[in-house]
């Protein structure tokens, strides 16, 4: 009973929040709504018994990703409206509706469940975090380490891209010219 109430509550809240994200004019409102929607999604993970995933969702998305967006919006004048003139509106909407209907049909059609065998089955009596750690460090050890390398690369890329000199195109101009321009900008 509680599961049903929680499911419908969270789904209405999440869909509402994400509709605000997509249809809001103000970028700040949509960022805040996105952070709210992320927290409501973690509610689904707790309902589904994936406790560790829910905690990671709150920490990573609502904590880290939203903080990165907030800091990124410091550099961007987000109060300035982007002119949203779309050509061929009717085609876009009909495409969206067609894709939506197709997705619902695909997903709600009965799954052939007899052919599916659990690849790494859950063990009764073992907690979710324990199980996650066990599988992550045995079966998925190599992807886990690769993910660590990928995050390191992303961190380096983020730092390099937002660093000072990168707003001057070095590839389109002569290097000395760009250097002069950069020094002029610093002197200013």
């Amino acid at each position, binding site marked *: 009973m509680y599961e049903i109430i929680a499911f419908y509550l969270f789904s209405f809240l999440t869909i509402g929040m994400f509709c605000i994200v*997509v249809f809001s004019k103000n970028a700040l409102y949509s960022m805040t709504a996105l952070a709210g929607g992320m927290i409501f999604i973690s509610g689904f993970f707790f309902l589904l018994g994936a406790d560790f995933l829910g905690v990671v969702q709150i920490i990573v998305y609502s904590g880290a*990703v939203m903080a990165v967006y907030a800091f990124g919006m410091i550099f961007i004048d987000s109060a300035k409206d982007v002119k949203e003139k779309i050509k061929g509106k009717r085609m876009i909407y009909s495409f969206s509706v067609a894709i939506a209907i197709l997705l619902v049909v695909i997903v709600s059609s009965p799954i052939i469940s007899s052919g599916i065998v659990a690849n790494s089955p859950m063990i009764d009596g073992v907690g979710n975090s324990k199980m996650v750690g066990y599988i992550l460090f045995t079966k998925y050890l190599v992807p886990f380490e690769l993910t660590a390398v990928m995050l390191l690369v992303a961190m380096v890329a983020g730092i390099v*891209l937002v660093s000072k000199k990168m707003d001057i195109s070095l590839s389109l101009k002569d290097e000395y010219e760009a250097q002069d321009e950069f020094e002029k900008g610093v002197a200013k």
Partner: protein
Amino acid sequence: MITITHYLVLSSILFTIGLVGIIRRKNLLMLFFSTEIILNAVNIGFAAISKYYHDMTGQMFAFFIIAVAASEVAVGLGLLVLWYKRKSTIDLDSLQSMRG
């Protein structure tokens, strides 16, 4: 009783919201937000399948998707800030510099 179908339909509804956001918005920041919505929708689907088939693989994939999303945000937002510094706009149409 909440079945797997409920979760999958919810997941596809959220996916569609994100897709509409990608098609409809011209603001580059909104494009990133819509991508996050899509990744989250897929994560819900993975977690639901993981529960109803008693298989941990779905949750593992969800973890890797979260890691990919985090690095995507770092790199993507860096590129966005760079673009804004050069062109001082985050309009999607300003990316069409090769169109004669």
